[in-house]
Every structure is written in C-alpha cells, then in structure tokens.
C-alpha cells in the first residue's frame, strides 16, 4: 500500500472504481432548532489524511464526533468500511480519537494511559507491554512511561494522546485540533512527525482544524466547511489555487477580491470590467457565467508584482496605487497598497536581496500587475 504513494500519485478519489473507506451520506445533525451539520455527503478513502477545515461552530467537530459515535446523526447514514454505523456505540467502532484537550487519564501513568485500550480488548499482558513500549518509542517518549500526565509538558501530553490512540492500530484515527495547544516550532515538527507516522502505519486520518496552514501541510485532501455544509473538497493545491467560492478563497490564505462584470468574452478568454480596480481584468480561459452577471475576481497577494515603472504591456491587469504600509516578515514583506479608487490591496514580495537601497517604501507610487492566469473568477 505504501509504495502506491511513492510510485504513482495517491489519488483514490479520482478513481471511479475505488471503494471509499468512510461514506457519509446526506448526514444532518440538529441540536434542537440549531442545524450543526447540514446534509453533508462525503467519501474518504483508505490511507487518506483528510482535513475538515472551518471556523468555530461550522460543524466540523460535530461531524467528527458522529464518526466516533458520540453523536447520532439526526438523519442520513455513515458507513465505515462498508458497515452502517447507526446505533453502534463508540466502544464497538473500529475508530480511535485523539481529543483536543488530549483527555489523558490524570490518575494513571503514561504507560497505563497507553495500555488502557489494549486492556479493554483483553490483549495478553506480555503483548501489551511490548506494544506500549514500541509505540512510546515511536512518539519519542520511551523514558517517560512511569510519569503521570501532570508531570509532562504540553507537547509530551499531546504525544501520549497520539500514542494512546495509535496503539490499538485502529483503521481510522480521528484527530480534533491535534496541534492546537502547541507553540509554532513544536507544531511544525509534530506535523511532519504525524505525516511520517501515517506513512509508517498506513492509518486513515480524519483531522479537524481551524488552522488553514495545518490543513495545507498535513492533508491529502481538505473539506472546507461553513455553517454545517461542506463548501469545497479538494487537494490543498485545488483549494488554494482553484477555490470555488468567495468563502473558500477568503478562508484559505489571503486574497484580494475585485467585484466586476464581463465586458468581453470568447471561448478562450474573458475580460472583466471592475470599477474598484480602474482597469479591466483579463483571464486566459473561458468562464461559464451568464453575461452581465455579477462576479468576483480573486487574486492572491503573492501573485501580484509590484514595480515603480509601468510594465511593458499594461492594458489589462495593471493598477496604480500608493504604498500605505509595509510589514517586514523576514523572508518576505507584506505591502498594503491603496489604489486610486481607495481600495486596499495586499501584496507579498519575497525579500530576495539582503539589503537594497532601492526597495519600494512608504508613499511610493507603484504599479500592481499580474499574469492573465492569476485571477480566479468566482460566481458565488
């Protein structure tokens, strides 16, 4: 299974014959009048690392808890490995979950925490000891077995929680904001560790997160959620470069949005008039949108070039503005540029040169321009 990932691209969702490991069919969950999850259908395949991404209250955690069996869907069905999960208690599901709060048993040592799940399955004592030792080694906590959870740091607790969920070798591992409580450096190293572990053990992961960066680095696919619905499902690249709506474009990464109308179109191009940009936006492919409908063009900050001189071909995709503010981030700088129409635009530029006298600075008059393939037309 593992070599499938290295030799050819791992994309079971593109294969019409692939059987999904998790099938969520028209699942709705209501709490009283409040609709937490609204008619969600989703297929997740074996060995995927699927991220449910969304803001707080978007229903992502409720969906996860329905997979774990802590909530029952109000309507709809969930299949795991072909089996209908309706009415099946959490302790009978082939699923383990890592909780946001880690939920370690405070009165047990690290070893006993990790061994707990195996004891419930009546695994022989010797085997329990072996498997616990092995999994603690994997999460680099080999020498911490005798400690109690409150004697551990946040990062160590997180790894205990992971080990406890992994030691039963579940077919499906659910992770609720797994890296939420860690500082930035620790998050980054843990992200890569998680991916390595997933590669080694071949487990299917479903991760819930509100952190788009986490979702981008971890996942094979992302499902962006809002108000209980899945807005878009796709690989990180698809989500970032080809968002299907203003919500997704705005939620994942930063984006500059230009409202406008089609003024000229053909099969292989479209030209959009935009009052705020004071220029026409040219896009080098056709768009399926009714003429004269209102639409939006999204342009990512890193795809905009910033120059003092006008670019050579400056009919389309070129706006003038004044630098209003600069945020220096080290590897790059974020420019806030005020267009002549008053609209603020964000542009990021890599700091390629260590020190330069001639960098663009505050109050400079600048040209902003981007390639014909950079704009994304959104109709929603």
């Amino acid at each position, binding site marked *: 299974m593992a070599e499938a990932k290295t030799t050819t691209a791992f994309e079971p969702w593109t294969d019409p014959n692939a059987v999904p490991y998790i099938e969520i069919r028209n699942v709705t969950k209501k709490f009283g009048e409040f609709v937490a999850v609204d008619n969600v259908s989703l297929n997740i395949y074996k060995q995927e690392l699927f991220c449910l991404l969304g803001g707080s209250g978007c229903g992502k955690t409720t969906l996860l808890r329905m997979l*774990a*069996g*802590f909530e029952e869907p109000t309507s709809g069905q969930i299949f795991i490995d072909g089996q209908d999960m309706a009415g099946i*208690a*959490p*302790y009978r599901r082939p*699923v*383990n*979950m890592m*909780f*946001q*709060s880690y*939920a*370690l*048993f*405070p*009165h047990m040592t690290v070893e006993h925490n990790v061994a*707990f*799940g195996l004891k*419930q*399955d009546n695994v022989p004592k010797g085997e329990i000891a072996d498997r616990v030792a092995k999994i603690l080694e994997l999460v680099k906590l080999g020498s911490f077995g005798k400690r*109690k959870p*409150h*004697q*551990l*740091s946040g*990062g*160590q607790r997180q790894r205990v929680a992971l080990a*406890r969920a992994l030691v*039963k070798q579940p077919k499906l591992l659910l992770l609720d904001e797994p890296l939420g409580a860690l500082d930035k450096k620790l998050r980054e190293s843990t992200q890569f560790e998680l991916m390595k572990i997933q590669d080694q053990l071949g487990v299917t992961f479903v991760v819930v997160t509100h952190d788009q960066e986490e979702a981008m680095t971890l996942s094979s696919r992302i499902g962006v959620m809002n108000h209980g619905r899945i807005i878009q499902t796709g690989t990180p690249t698809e989500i970032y470069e080809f968002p299907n709506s203003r919500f997704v474009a705005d939620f994942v990464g930063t984006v500059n949005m230009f409202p406008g109308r089609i003024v000229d179109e053909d099969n292989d191009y479209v030209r959009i008039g935009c009052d705020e940009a004071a220029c026409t936006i040219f896009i080098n492919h056709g768009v399926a949108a009714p003429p004269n409908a209102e639409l939006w063009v999204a342009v990512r900050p890193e795809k905009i070039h910033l120059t003092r001189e006008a670019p050579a071909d400056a009919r389309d995709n070129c706006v003038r503005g004044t630098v209003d503010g600069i945020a220096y981030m080290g590897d790059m700088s974020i420019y806030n540029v005020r267009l002549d129409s008053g609209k603020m635009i964000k542009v990021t530029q890599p700091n390629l040169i260590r020190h330069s006298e001639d960098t663009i600075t505050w109050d400079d008059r600048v040209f902003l321009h981007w390639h014909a393939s950079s704009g994304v037309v959104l109709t929603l």
Partner: protein
Amino acid sequence: MKQKSWFLRGALALGFAFLYLPILSLVVYSFNDNKLVTVWSKFSVKWYGVLLQDEPILSAAWLSLKIAFMNATLAVILGTLVALALARFGAFRGRALLSSLATAPLVMPEVITGLSLLLLFVAMEQFIGWPAGRGTLTIVIAHATFSMSYVAVIVQSRLTGMDVSIEEAALDLGAKPAKVFMVITLPIIAPALLSGWLLAFTLSLDDLVIASFVSGPGSTTLPMVIYSKVRLGLSPEINALATLLVGFVSIAVLGAGLLMARQERLRQRDVQMAIAGNK
C-alpha cells in the same frame, strides 16, 4: 515586614476570642475538680475517669459512631447517583424537579424534616410492616436523606468541573460505560466522595433534632444523651466529653490539612520537573 496597625491586631484578637473563648473555657473547666461547673477549685482529671465509667454515654457514643458511619456510606452512594443524573444525563424530564428536591433538605428546617420522616415511618410500618419500630435503622435512613443532599452538591460540582472528554476517551478506547465509571470517573472524583463522606459523617454525628424524632427506645445517640443530661443540670463530665470530641475533631482536621498540603507540595514539584524537563 510592615508593622500591622493596632486596629487589625485588635480585630484579629477579637475574632479569635469570639470563636474560641467558649471552647477554651469548656476545655479549662473540664479539668475542674469541683462538682459545680462554674466554681473553680483545683486541677483534676477525675471527670475523665467518671466519663469512662459512664456506661450510657459510652454506648451512646458507640451507637452515634456506627450510625454516622452507615449514614455517610449510604449518603455517598445515593448522593453520587443524584449527582451523576444531574451532571451527566443532559436534559431530561423532571431534571429541574430532581435538582430542587435534591437540594431542598439543605434549607428545610430540621424540625419539619424530622416530623415528616416520623410520619412516613409510622405510615410505612402500618401498611407494609417495614421498618418495624424505630431505632438505629430509621435514624440512618433519616440522616441519609438530608446528608445525601450535601454529598450530591459536592460531587456534582466535581463532575461538572471534570473534562467529559476523559470519559469519552475511555469509551472510545473500548471500555463499556459501567467500566468507564468504575475505572475512570470514580478515581477522578474520589476526593469529592471522601470529603462528602466526612461531611455526612459529622452531620450525622452532631444531629439532635432529626434523631430525636425518629429514634426509638434503646437507640439514644450521643447528642441526645448530652442534651438530656444538660437539661438536668450542668455536669463537668459533659465538659470532659466535649473536650475529647473537640480534640478528636481537631486532630482529624489537622491531619487532613497536613495531608493536603503535602500533596500540593508534591504536585508543585512535579510541575517544576515537567517544565525543567521540557525541551
């Protein structure tokens, strides 16, 4: 250190005096040789000797301890069940009713509790023949009905403060609900159960009113004996008994305090260790 003002010192002294002077005078007079409680003659421990010879008092004390023990155990079991229902079952029909009924005995005048229980016991004896007569059993039941409320309040607050996902994690790892309760929930709320047990124990030990209503012949508790003796006139023997009780309670409280302080110190050290060992 900054010098405290005479006002604060005075307030402190007054507060201590108000709280402890009555007990102190009781302790002092328990060592009085004179037969009259209010007249000091000379130091003596003779009333302690008299006390240890006093069969009715000793048997009443033993009965009170037995009742307190049984009551505390029963109250912890019932109170924990109520607390579980209130803290874990979410919304259910009659939740508000259960919640207010469970806490009603906390504010109910003892006379009313005692009287109503007496009426109930009498009626039950007439209709189903149980409990046959009044005695130790009825006192235990009566005490448990009001002290379980205290336990319920204590345990409920502990359950509410506990992270529910700990129980969910145990379920998720394959433990059935009953097992989760025994292996995970109980150990975590054990301190609350212990303090509930101790509270129920002391509540039962010093209850006079309710016990007077529901006791029968031959089941006289210590507070009832003390009360009836005092009505006949103050006796230095009671002073000696009270001093022993105060000493007993003080040692218990002090011991519990020291134990808790030690645990807190250990925990602090563990936290320091975790921070130091964190790379």
